[in-house]
């Protein structure tokens, strides 16, 4: 058993070695880390190599040096490089594993050996994941050193990036493997996996937008409610005063809503606005629940890659810059103010409340189902 697994491991290495793309990706990873190393931050602002980037309004007063580097690693290194560019390159490199395995003339040579089909499939699958593991490991180690030297912090939590990115890639790779088995075509597997990935991305973007709208609507409602409370208090006081002036008793007198609206027509506008907000919230909640349910059965690429940020960066460590006038003007809520920082925190809170068990558990369950299906197809098919 070990002999066969080792042989397949060596073979996978030789195959990767033969593919120039593996080394190109490695080289590009090295370049990305080199760029990280050239970026600096101090009290005056950011620098790149010998140049000061005066136009970037970030300095160590806003973001501590170590947090800056960790954020750069998670947002750019993981968020863009590893989970987008390197993942695409890895998919291109590994999409052919199963179509090539089941090509006529190739499959007979391995199926005729004393190895079970399921084990063969899963071993090949694991070898594909090794590609990404190797890429991420090299990138993370290099980043760890850069952050240690430049950020003056030796953050071992960075190594969480390895399992997180591998798990992230595995969501896509399992789909790619299944499609490769079904279509027998590398190009078809790659394109359809890309389509699947775009679908997940759209779903994630939709989810984020809906959560933001929902939280924004909640804040608008809270603000409107406080205005209503204030207006009701003032109107009631006014009504009592007027009643006293007319010599009527105000003891135990509580003005009705109709009386208050009659005295203060502006209140009706507030009530109407609140009712509209409630309708909006219901609709947003409905769609948000729908998207959330859809996401529950699908792999959560966005949330998975964000797990690293959750673990590495405490949002309180970052001092938000003051809101400028331009930002205030852009506030979409016309008559009701929404604190954008507060909104950002609430949205972040919603996503942080989604448990790691939900993010990883349901995504891995999806992967398990896809792998089971692939194994069943591979084990039962005649070649």
């Amino acid at each position: 058993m070990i002999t066969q697994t080792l042989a397949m491991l060596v073979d996978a290495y030789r195959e990767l070695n033969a593919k120039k793309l593996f080394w190109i990706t490695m080289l590009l990873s090295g370049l990305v880390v080199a760029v990280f190393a050239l970026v600096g931050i101090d009290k005056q602002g950011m620098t790149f190599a010998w140049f000061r980037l005066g136009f970037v309004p970030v300095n160590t007063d806003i973001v501590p040096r170590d947090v800056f580097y960790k954020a750069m690693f998670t947002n750019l290194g993981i968020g863009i490089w590893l989970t987008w560019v390197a993942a695409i390159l890895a998919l291109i490199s590994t999409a052919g594993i199963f179509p090539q395995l089941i090509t006529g003339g190739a499959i007979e040579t391995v199926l005729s050996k004393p190895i079970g089909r399921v084990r063969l499939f899963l071993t090949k699958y694991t070898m594909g994941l090794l590609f990404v593991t190797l890429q991420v490991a090299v990138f993370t180690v290099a980043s760890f050193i850069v952050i240690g030297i430049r950020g003056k912090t030796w953050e071992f939590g960075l190594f969480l990036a390895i399992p997180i990115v591998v798990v992230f890639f595995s969501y896509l790779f399992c789909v790619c493997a299944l499609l490769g088995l079904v279509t027998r075509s590398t190009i078809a597997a790659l394109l359809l996996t890309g389509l699947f990935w775009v679908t997940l991305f759209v779903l994630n973007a939709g989810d984020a937008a809906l959560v933001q709208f929902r939280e924004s609507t909640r804040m608008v409602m809270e603000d409107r409610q406080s205005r209503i409370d204030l207006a009701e208090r003032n109107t009631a006081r006014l009504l009592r005063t007027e009643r006293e002036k007319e010599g009527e008793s105000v003891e135990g007198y509580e003005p009705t809503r109709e009386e208050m609206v009659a005295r203060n027509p502006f209140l009706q506008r507030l009530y109407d606005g609140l009712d509209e907000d409630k309708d909006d919230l219901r609709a947003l909640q409905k769609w948000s629940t729908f998207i959330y349910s859809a996401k529950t059965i699908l792999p959560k690429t966005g949330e998975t890659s964000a797990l690293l940020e959750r673990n590495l960066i405490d949002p309180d460590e970052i001092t938000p810059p003051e809101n400028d006038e331009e930002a205030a003007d852009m506030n979409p809520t016309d008559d009701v103010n929404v604190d954008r920082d507060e909104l950002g925190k609430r949205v972040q809170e919603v996503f942080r409340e989604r448990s790691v068990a939900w993010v990883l558990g349901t995504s891995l369950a999806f992967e398990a189902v896809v792998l089971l299906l692939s194994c069943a197809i591979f084990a039962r098919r005649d070649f």
Partner: protein
Amino acid sequence: MPGELAIDLRHVAKTYKGRVHALRGVDMRIHKGEIFGLLGPNGAGKSTLVKILMTVIRPSKCEGTMLGHKVGHKPTLARVGYLPEHHRFPDYLTGAQVVDFYGAMCKVPRRERKAKTGKLLELVGMSEWAKKKLGGYSKGMRQRVGIAQALVNDPELVLLDEPTDGVDPVGRRDIRNILQQMKSDGRTVFLNSHLLSELEMVCDRVAILVQGTVRAQGTIDELTVDKRRYEIELAGLDPKGATERITRVIASLGLGSWDGQEPPAGWKGSSRLASGHAYRVEASTLHVQTAEPSEIQGLIDAFRRESLQIRAIRPFRPSLEDLFMEAVTDPTTGKTLLPGASRDLKGGRR
């Protein structure tokens, strides 16, 4: 070990989607230590049968054993070597790496593989190419490396599907020698080939598979025993009266009759000697249905007594090609059966 079976197949059937019957109940026995040849036209089901043995295809029905274990028993494959038809070994591997990799897949320990790789590549004449990648190999060279990888696990049974495909005449001779070497090493060889002359030269027994059924099976002698004959060609006869003269000489020795029996297959319109053998005269040549030289001595004596000159006496044994052609010919219509697997069409059968 004579008599022991390396492969014992019964009722092997495979029906693909669309009711394509690749195999329709194949019974086949292959003895240990023999070279067995499976021949048949394209689409007869030869490769399907081999793939069933190697677990590449799942049979619709199969009762049988390979090396004493049920067909499909994976661990048994560690004792079997296999060269598929149209194999595609990875181009990024060298010849030595191919042998080593497939050896490892057969669970051959590393040290043993290392020792065997060089020897096997030498056996197939590929030592000088051992460290070169397959991308630069010709088809014949790939075939040789393929044979080497099939032997790396020191198999008791070797299944070779079209091993001489794309190989030049020198290479074919080398492969024949390797096959003989395998046999003398005590291995059982199952050979799947279109090249009848190749098979005839090396096989102890053959089976002819046509449209998913075994039409004939046995040693070439067994399969040809009824079809062997002697041809006695006479010289100096007037072509017009030759047949009559020869018939007169035969009649002087006494004649038999069919007594309402059908003459043997291939001897339609023939007469019968007193010994019971069929004979036929064509121009100045007498054909006698016998494989025994003693059966024609009386005829030779009679011709000589009549002062007839004998130009040649030839024992005739049909070739494997003759057997093959007979197997693929419909006995009722005399037409060659269509190639390919049989398919149910509107309840009927092609």
